[in-house]
C-alpha cells in the first residue's frame, strides 16, 4: 500500500498547491458575489483513501454535489496513512477546502488550533438528521461543531458463517471466551489459522488491546488508563496480555509482516477462521463477490468478565471537516453540509457501496444482513469508544503504544518491562 502513498500524496500536494493558487486568484472575485450558498464557486475535496470502493462512493457524492450546485469540485486522493502524517502541515498550508477526517480527539485538537471551519450553523440546519451522540462526537472543546459524520463501523469479531458451520458450531451462537477458544481449536484442527492478525502498521493490534481491556477490566478502567488516570504497570493491564498470550498460538506467525488488509486476505481466502477488525472491509468482500459478502458475519468480541459482559465497543466515526486555510472555506462548508444532508448521503448510498451512515435518515430496513448485524452489535454495547489512537494523546498512541505492542509480539515474555516502559514514557510526556 505504502508504495502508492508517496506518489499520490506528492502529486496531490502539488495539485493542491496549484489549486490553492488558482483559488486565491478566483477568491477575490467571489467575495463580491458571496451571499447565499447558491454559488460558492469551485472548490477542492481531499479524500483520505485511494481504495476502490470508498473512492467510488466519494466520487458519487462529488458528482451529486456538482450536479446540484454547478460548482466544480477537484477531487484529490491521498493514501490514508500519508494523509494522516501530513495533516498538520496540510492544514497550515494550502489544504483542500473540504476533507475527510475522524471524530473525537483528533478533530478537537485541530479545531483548538483554529485550523477547522466552525460548522455550528450547518449543524443548526441539518443537525436534526443526527442522533445526539453524533453531535457530541462532532463538537470541539469550545462547544462548537467542527465535524460532519459520514459513517461509523464497529470493531468486532468477523468470520465466515460457512466456515464456523464447517467446524460444527452455530455461527450465530458464539458468546463467551470459551466459545471463542472452541472456534480457535476447531480451526486449528482443520489446519487453519484461528485468528488472523496484523500489526505491521503499528495500529492494527490496538483494537485488540482496547477490546481485551474493556472486556476484562471494563470501560471505565480503559478510559482512565488512556487518560493517564490509571497506570500501565497495574496488574489489571498485565491481565490483558495474559489473555492475549492465550490467543497467540492460534494467530498467524507473521503478524508483523501483515497490514490490516493482509490479515483480511487470510479470512477472504478462507485461510483463517476469525478476524478482529473494523467492519469497513465488508466493501472489500463485496468487491470480491456477493457470495463472499453474504457469508461474512460479525459479533461483538466475546465476553470474558461477566461483570462487564459485552458492554463496550470501539466504533470510530469517520466524516468530513472544512479547512480554515482553504482557498474557498465557504465552498468547503457548503460541500460538507451537502455531504451531511440526506441528499448527499443518498448519493453515497446509491453508489452501491455498503455504508452504515450516521444520518438517521438512512432507512435501516434497507440494510443488508451484514449491516443489520453491525447495528445489532452496536446496539448491544452500552459504552462506545473511538479507538486507542483516537482516545489518547497522539504523541503517545503512535510513537509509544504502537512500537510497544510490536515489541510485545516479538517477545511476549517481556510484558513486564514493556509495561514499565509504557508508563515511564507516559510520565515523560510534555504537559498539555
Amino acid at each position, binding site marked *: 500500500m*505504502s*508504495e502508492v502513498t*508517496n506518489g499520490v500524496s506528492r502529486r496531490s500536494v502539488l495539485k493542491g498547491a496549484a489549486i490553492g493558487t488558482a483559488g486565491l486568484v478566483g477568491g477575490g472575485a467571489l467575495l463580491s458575489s458571496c451571499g447565499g450558498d447558491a454559488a460558492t464557486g469551485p472548490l477542492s475535496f481531499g479524500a483520505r483513501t485511494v481504495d476502490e470502493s470508498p473512492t467510488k462512493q466519494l466520487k458519487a457524492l462529488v458528482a451529486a454535489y456538482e450536479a446540484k450546485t454547478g460548482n466544480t469540485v477537484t477531487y484529490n486522493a491521498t493514501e490514508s*496513512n500519508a494523509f*494522516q*502524517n*501530513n*495533516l*498538520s*502541515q496540510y492544514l*497550515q498550508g494550502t489544504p483542500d477546502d473540504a476533507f475527510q477526517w475522524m471524530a473525537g480527539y*483528533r478533530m478537537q*485538537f*485541530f479545531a483548538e*488550533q*483554529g*485550523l477547522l471551519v466552525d460548522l455550528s450553523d450547518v449543524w443548526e440546519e441539518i443537525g436534526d438528521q443526527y442522533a445526539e451522540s453524533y453531535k457530541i462526537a462532532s463538537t470541539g472543546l469550545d462547544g462548537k461543531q467542527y465535524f460532519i459524520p459520514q459513517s461509523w463501523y464497529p470493531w468486532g469479531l468477523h468470520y465466515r458463517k460457512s466456515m464456523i458451520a464447517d467446524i460444527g458450531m452455530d455461527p450465530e451462537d458464539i458468546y463467551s471466551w470459551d466459545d471463542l477458544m472452541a472456534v480457535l481449536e476447531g480451526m486449528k484442527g482443520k489446519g487453519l*489459522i484461528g485468528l488472523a492478525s496484523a500489526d*505491521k*502498521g*503499528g*495500529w492494527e493490534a490496538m483494537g485488540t488491546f482496547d477490546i481485551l481491556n474493556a472486556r476484562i477490566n471494563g470501560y471505565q478502567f480503559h478510559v482512565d488508563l488512556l487518560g493517564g488516570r490509571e497506570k500501565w504497570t497495574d496488574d489489571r493491564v498485565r491481565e490483558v496480555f495474559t489473555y492475549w498470550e492465550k490467543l497467540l498460538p492460534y494467530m*498467524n*506467525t*507473521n*503478524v*508483523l*509482516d*501483515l497490514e490490516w488488509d*493482509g490479515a483480511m*486476505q*487470510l479470512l477472504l*481466502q478462507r*485461510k*483463517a477462521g476469525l478476524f478482529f477488525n473494523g467492519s469497513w472491509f465488508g466493501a472489500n468482500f463485496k468487491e470480491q463477490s456477493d457470495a463472499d459478502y453474504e457469508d461474512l458475519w460479525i459479533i461483538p468480541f466475546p465476553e470474558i468478565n461477566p461483570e462487564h459482559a459485552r458492554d463496550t465497543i470501539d466504533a470510530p466515526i469517520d466524516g468530513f471537516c472544512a479547512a480554515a486555510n482553504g482557498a474557498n472555506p465557504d465552498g468547503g462548508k457548503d460541500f460538507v453540509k451537502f455531504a451531511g444532508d440526506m441528499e448527499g448521503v443518498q448519493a453515497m448510498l446509491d453508489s452501491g457501496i455498503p455504508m452504515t451512515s450516521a444520518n438517521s435518515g438512512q432507512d435501516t430496513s434497507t440494510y443488508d444482513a451484514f449491516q443489520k448485524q453491525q447495528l445489532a452489535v452496536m446496539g448491544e454495547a452500552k459504552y462506545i469508544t473511538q479507538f486507542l489512537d483516537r482516545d489518547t*494523546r*497522539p*504523541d*503517545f*498512541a*503512535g*510513537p509509544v503504544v*504502537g*512500537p510497544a505492542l*510490536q*515489541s510485545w509480539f*516479538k517477545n511476549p515474555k517481556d510484558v513486564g518491562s514493556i509495561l514499565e*516502559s509504557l508508563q*515511564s*514514557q507516559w*510520565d*515523560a510526556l*510534555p*504537559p498539555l
Partner: protein
Amino acid sequence: MASTAVGGKTRRRRAFSKKDRVTLGVFVGIPTFLHVALVWFPAVATIGLSFTYWTGIRFSDIKWAGIANYVNIIADTPAFRIALKNNTIWLLWFALIATPLGILLAYQIDRQIRGHKFYQSAYYMPVILSLAVIGIIWNFMLRPDGFINGLIGRDITNAVSFFGDDRWNLYVILTIASWRHIGYIMLLYLAGLKAIDPSLREAASIDGATEWQTFKRVIFPSMKPVNIIVVVITIIETLRAFDIIYIIYGTSAGMPILGVLVFQNIAGEGASMKGAAYAVILFVLSIGPILAYLRQQFREDVK
C-alpha cells in the same frame, strides 16, 4: 568529480574592479542568503526547539522544557536504543562490507576485466534510482504476497518473513541498501581510478609489485581525496537512512532507526519536539565523526 583541490599557494592576488565586486557579491550573496535562510536558520531553530514543548502549530504555545526531551529519549525510550544499535550495525555493514565491495568492483572494472562495460552499467543502475524507488521495488519483491514468496510457492499464511522477523530483517534491509551503495561507491572510485597516472602502475609493475601491493602501496594512497569522500559518504548514508525504511515499514517503528524516529515524532498529529531532539542527536552524531575525520586528514596534509 568533486575532489578537494590542494595547493594554490602561488595564486596571485589581484584587485577586483567594481563591476567584478558587484557580480561576485550577487553570485556569492544570493546563494549565501539562501543557504543561511534555508539551511542554517532551520538547523538553529531545530536546536532551539528541541529544548521546548510544542505541537508545531501556534508560536504562542511554545513552552520551555530544558533538557526534558533528551532525558525522555535517552532514559525512557527503548526505541532509541534499538535505533542506535541498528544505525551502528548499518555503519559497520557499510564500512566493512558494502564500501570495500564497491572499491573492489571499481578496481576490477578499471582493470578492464572481460565484460567490464556490462558490469559497470549493471552495478551503476541502482544508483540512478532514488532510495524511495528502491524501497518500492524491493517491497514488491519481498513482502508476504510479493514476487519472491510467489516464486517459491508460499502464500501469506506461510510466507518467508523478510521484513517482520527480527533475526534477519535488518540484514535484508542492509542488503537492499547496499545494492545501491555499492554502485555509488564504485562510481566514485572508478572516476578516481581513471584519473590516476598509468605510469605509476607501470613503475610499480617494473619494480615487481604484485597486484595487491600495487593497490595497497601505490593506488590507494594516491586516491586520498576520493577516499575521504568515500568515508564521509558512507557515514552520511548511514545516518540519513530513512527512505527505504519509511517505504517498507511506514512510521510504525517496525524497524527503528534514527531517521524514522525523527519523522515519527514530528510528523502527523503526534508532533512533539522530541522529534527535534532526535534530529539534533542525529546531527551531532553525523557532524562529530565527519569533522574529526576531516580534521585529522587535513592535519596530515599540513605535515
